[in-house]
């Protein structure tokens, strides 16, 4: 799970706004917490009609933007306008990840990290270029209860094999998409002549959506449990209400029955024809009432016998989760694949080992023990044997 959200602090917002204004061609003259901004004629922005305006960086709660003056603060209207404009500017981009980006800092395989061996030297040997798709995917989870959540996941997959490149999403986010860390031109320059067709690209983006969803499954499972508990509590309330109603109905039926008996007596003892007709009419009304109540009670009892299944289904259905994924930005990444050569040492002895590796993504494939061919893993890390490298299992 690679969370792509960034906490909105004043400094991040300031860095973003500065870069945004400069990128669209504005000149920004900074005077402490006030910026004087001049937009070129060809730039049209939503938030201002004029080409000159002031930006006031958040300082004080009472600060209100005047005419042609905008307050830049987390949650300020101006900040939101800038973000909205930037979001729609260019949802697709390209960049290149090379070995240089790591500056010699490699992502070692976990079966090395967990071993007792020391990496005394490492070098990456790129063999060929590949294309990957990096996507930022929005995942919204909605329920009727209060546990509505939104995730923003970053994922990377190889465009042709569609396998996830777990380490790459984090590398790309940190190296290229941190507002406080503007990459130089050479860092991202895409020299690759290769490209991928639209169909392959679309398939890769879809795969990214699915992968992003898989990565937050655990969190969604928690939300599902919370929503289920809320549904359970509501259903429980309903059940109690029905039991109460049953008890009320029983009392009411008893009361109607007593009144019916009394009316029956009235029929028998009526002194005039008129009284008798009145009593008969009353009896009819009460019988109808009794039947109605009995039916109501029978209906509830029947539902109860079935555990109020319909109601339960209805409540649970209302509390169901709607999960929606949407890619909001995608970067086509050209990257180098090859092998990493690791010189591993223990007590003065050292041996060399190679592993499939990709720049920005780390090791990309399984490696087996040179001796017993068992798969190396954090639980079965590499070890130094008498005759060379081995694994925990075969030592």
């Amino acid at each position, binding site marked *: 799970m690679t969370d792509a959200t960034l906490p909105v602090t004043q400094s991040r917002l300031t860095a973003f706004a500065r870069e945004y204004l400069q990128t669209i061609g504005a000149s920004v003259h900074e005077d402490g917490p006030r910026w004087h901004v001049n937009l070129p004629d060809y730039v049209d922005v939503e938030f201002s009609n004029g080409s000159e305006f002031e930006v006031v960086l958040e300082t004080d709660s009472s600060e209100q933007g005047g005419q042609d003056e905008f307050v830049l603060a987390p949650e300020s209207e101006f900040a939101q306008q800038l973000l909205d404009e930037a979001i729609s500017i260019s949802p697709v981009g390209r960049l290149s990840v090379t070995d240089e980006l790591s500056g010699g800092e490699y992502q070692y395989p976990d079966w090395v990290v967990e071993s007792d061996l020391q990496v005394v030297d490492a070098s990456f040997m790129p063999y060929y270029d590949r294309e990957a798709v990096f996507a930022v995917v929005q995942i919204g989870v909605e329920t009727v209860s209060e546990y509505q959540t939104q995730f923003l996941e970053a994922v990377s997959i190889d465009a042709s094999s569609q396998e996830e490149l777990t380490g790459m999403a984090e590398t790309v986010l940190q190296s290229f998409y941190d507002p406080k860390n503007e990459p130089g031109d050479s860092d991202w320059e895409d020299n690759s002549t290769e490209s991928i067709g639209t169909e392959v690209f679309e398939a890769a983006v879809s795969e990214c959506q699915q992968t992003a*969803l898989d990565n937050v499954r655990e969190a969604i499972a928690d939300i599902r449990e919370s929503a289920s508990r*809320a549904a359970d509590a509501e259903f429980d309330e309903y059940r109690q209400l029905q039991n109460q109603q049953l008890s009320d109905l029983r009392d009411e039926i008893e009361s109607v029955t007593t009144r019916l008996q009394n009316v029956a007596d009235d029929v028998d003892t009526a002194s005039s024809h008129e009284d008798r007709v009145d009593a008969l009419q009353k009896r009819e009304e009460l019988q109808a009432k009794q039947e109605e109540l009995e039916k109501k009670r029978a209906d509830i009892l029947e539902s109860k016998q079935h555990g109020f299944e319909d109601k339960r289904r209805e409540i649970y259905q209302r509390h169901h989760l709607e999960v929606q994924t949407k890619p909001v930005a995608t970067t086509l990444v050209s990257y180098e694949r090859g092998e990493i050569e690791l010189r591993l040492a223990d007590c003065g002895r050292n041996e060399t080992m190679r592993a499939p590796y990709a720049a920005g993504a780390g090791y990309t494939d399984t490696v087996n023990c040179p001796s017993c061919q068992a798969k190396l893993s954090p639980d079965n890390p590499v070890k130094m044997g008498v005759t060379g490298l081995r694994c925990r299992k075969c030592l």
Partner: protein
Amino acid sequence: MDDEDLVDVEIAHEAPDDISDAYTPEASEFPFHRLTVVANRLSAGQPDTELRSLSSVDEEQVKLLEHQVDAAHRALFEMDGKALLADEVGLGKTIEVGMILKEMHYRETDDSVLILTPAQLAKQWQGELREKFGLDFVCNYDGEFQGFDAHDRIISSIDTAKSDRYRHSVLSRNWDVLVLDEAHYVKNEDTDRYELIDKLTYDYAFFLTATPIQNELTDLYNIVSLLRPGLFGSRETFHHYFVDNGQDTLVNRNELQQRLHQVMIRNRRAETDIDFTNREIDTRTFQPSNSERELYEAVTDYVREAYSEDRGQKLVLMMLQKEVVSSPAALKKTIRKQLDANNELTHRSELETILEKIDAIETVTKQERLFDIVEEAREHVEMGRVIVFTQFRATQQQVLESLQEQGYTTHAFHGGHSSQEKENIVDRFREEGGVLVSTDAMSEGRNLQFCNIMVNYDLPWNPMKVEQRIGRIHRIGQKREVFVFNMALEDTIEEYVLERLYHKIDLFQQTVGELSTILTRLEDSGKGFEDEIFERLVNADSEANLENDFEAMAVDLEEQQELSEKVENFNSAVFENFDLGATDD
């Protein structure tokens, strides 16, 4: 949870049409694309979760502690504005709520706020929020209070809110913020109080209690379910899963902690850096002069008789009884007022007799003895700073004059001053030293840690007021030992209150906050403290009965105190090893 107990999940993957349309195999301008990705990241991120109003809190008025800031932050930003603040007693839950409300005010998310408290604490809440955080609320005990639909920021006793008169208007509003103090009083789902909270509509809620569990673990379920319905599922599920059959211990503690962590914050005293200095109590009782004794007896007889014959307002009679032990000057003022205001008084002669007895007093014993204390202070304490508290302006005036005659530097502080004047007075007292003679108008929120000696010249019958007086000087930031002198005349109501009640519950050594727990327990059983004292005084037909009555009240108080302690200990035991104060990160 089994699969059949879970709600369904519908998944939809939105087709990436926009993205596909924007895709071209040619290179795009990366700087623009970078801005799009960054903007998405920021847009989906949580807004700045700094407490931005903190800088505008006056540090002179309130020293914010780390655990309080953390609690306010978590309640607002991690719990989505619905939290149970369950710090142990004395760690400043009111301050935490003050910070929360201040921040919400800053962010303009507090158009309507309702604070429900036990009756005893309503005014104290009002004072603290005003003095410490600059937040103005109308209290249901204020003259200007015109109902729950007439104001947007209200502090009310919960019982007033649930009364037939107001219930409808309280429930018909949609409140932005609800604060519920001593939330354990809504633990029982069969009560009117619970029903009121259950039916209230609000967007944000903060419940406060040091003891979420009073009797059984279901209490916790009820309180939490009011805040976050469904967090624990149904009652049966909660019992089945978290409570052992014996009803007194929790099972599946990790799971419970995980869920409680979403809604409850509990700081423990041992984990905070709160450290109070020692408090030394010196209670001095004095033999009244014969003329003072005569006056006291005359007034007491008058009050008893007037009350039994129902010929006097209870409040006025109560005041006379308090004034007679405060000062002859205070008493004289009230008696004069009575005589002047009512020409048809049937008991005019008795009042005139009392006036004569007042005039017969040549030396006021307490006043004379006060000189001893301030003299000791002048010799031993920096700049001889002493605060003398009295309930009455007339007493204040008399004390000031006598001190001035003796050559002491004096300062007067009372409710008649404007806020600026009050500030100036405190500043002068800090700079010049001497004796500050104050009424209880000082009790609301002003901090005087630079002084460490206070005198209770007379004693309020409401122990909360005593606690507030002490709280002015004995608070976080006080670096020296604090001395509290209590003055009382022998064999008077004041001595009874002091010796039989206040010392019995160790009032003068209580941790801040403990007292409110005891008193709200008492209040919950339908008794008011001042009324209790007065009723016992006027209804006792002999000295022995009076003593017995006060003894009974003391026993009652002690029981409440023991109960409070038990409940507090029980909660500590239940929540032991619960790491509710920190995040999981």
